[in-house]
């Protein structure tokens, strides 16, 4: 079975380490916040200028001046700090964020990522995505393995305009967890009940299947 959105978030959360500063993109990455293990402490960065994003407010404590990068009303947790947009991106571009999780349309074997623009469709903008992928050492891309029409999103070369070049090393799809090394995807884990054959069939870019591929458990 392909992973649900919640399972994808759960799997990403296993990459969190105590003391990490983490930037979570919009969509599935946001859900990762729900699965932070109880025994570790991580600080969530929101690129509009908040380090230490807390839970959503109550109706009584809602504050128009306290939002996250998705423009949702949030709270600041204990130990949080607030700063301007240039400082926020200094943290991001300067490599101070330990883990970045974001969605994508496509990734390829060179670690290129396309996530913001489909020619011919309305382009809304890249927001902070280009800065995030350019600045982070440790990025996990979350996306479905193939489009609704069955077209692979793990490609030899991205077909869409790029968000960043050569910056992606880890991809979690609904079918598998893969790493990108030396011009190939390397299959590390399969979703429960998903066959290696299915992953091979749905991966257009060069795929290496080592002997020690493990099946994820939840």
């Amino acid at each position, binding site marked *: 079975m392909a992973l649900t959105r919640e399972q994808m978030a759960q799997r990403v959360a296993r990459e969190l380490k105590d003391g990490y500063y983490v930037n979570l993109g919009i969509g599935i990455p946001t859900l990762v916040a729900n699965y932070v293990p109880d025994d570790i402490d991580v600080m969530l960065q929101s690129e509009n200028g908040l380090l230490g994003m807390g839970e959503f407010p109550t109706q009584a404590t809602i504050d128009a001046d306290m*939002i996250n990068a998705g423009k949702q009303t949030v709270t600041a947790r204990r130990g949080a700090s607030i700063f301007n947009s240039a400082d926020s991106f200094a943290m991001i571009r300067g490599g101070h964020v330990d883990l970045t999780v974001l969605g994508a349309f496509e990734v390829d074997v060179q670690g290129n990522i396309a996530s913001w623009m489909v020619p011919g469709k309305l382009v809304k903008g890249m927001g902070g995505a280009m800065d995030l992928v350019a600045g982070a050492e440790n990025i996990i891309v979350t996306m479905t393995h193939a489009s609704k029409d069955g077209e692979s999103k793990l490609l030899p070369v991205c077909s869409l305009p790029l968000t960043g070049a050569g910056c992606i090393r880890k991809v979690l799809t609904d079918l598998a967890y893969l790493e990108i090394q030396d011009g190939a995807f390397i299959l590390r884990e399969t979703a429960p009940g998903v066959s290696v054959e299915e992953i091979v069939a749905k991966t257009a870019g060069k795929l290496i299947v080592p002997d020690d591929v493990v099946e994820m458990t939840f």
Partner: protein
Amino acid sequence: MSGLDKRVYTYEEALEGLTDNMTVLSGGFGLCGIPENLINEIKRRGVTGLTVVSNNCGVDGFGLGVLLEDRQIRKMVASYVGENAEFERQLLSGELEVVLTPQGTLAEKMRAGGAGIPAFYTATGYGTPVAEGKEVRDFNGRHYILEEAITGDFAIVKGWKADHYGNVVYRNTAQNFNPLVATAGKITVVEVEEIVEPGVLLPSEIHTPGIYVNRVIQGTFEKRIEKRTTRD
């Protein structure tokens, strides 16, 4: 009182000198921390041909979105512009020119503009459409593109509290681009919720020192919420 008293008492005074074809920098992220009354004053003045630099362009009927209604904006420099049907229409019809700029690059362009740095190299956007036509240089084995600073004829800023010297503090994430915008305007106008007596704001808590600020006005704010999310 003195040349250091930046207070003005009407919005008309606040934007005195704003004319057609000028560049206006605006603070705010989404609808959070936007100078909503100064934007409404730009609408009232009816100036056109504006270049507006702001992370976003408001929504239909609120924030910078109101300047689209009478086609006052000719060119928009922003990182994300998704929330606005009229924006979309003008973009697709070619009435509006849009320069999409990565959010961190946009912030740094204004920081640099205010700090007298004409351009800077960044890895952001290398290998993407953003890099087209820009100089590329290698530092320590990595590719960087040259991005130019931004300054404006006017900077419009939303603060929380200010004193009459123009020292400003911002509240929570309504800070965002505001302190950067404030440094990069030839004329910087700050509207705040409260003008306090000098000395109330401690020197060490000032976000924007008054040297950057030309005019301060106290206003009242709707503070519309774009995505109201709660846990109850």
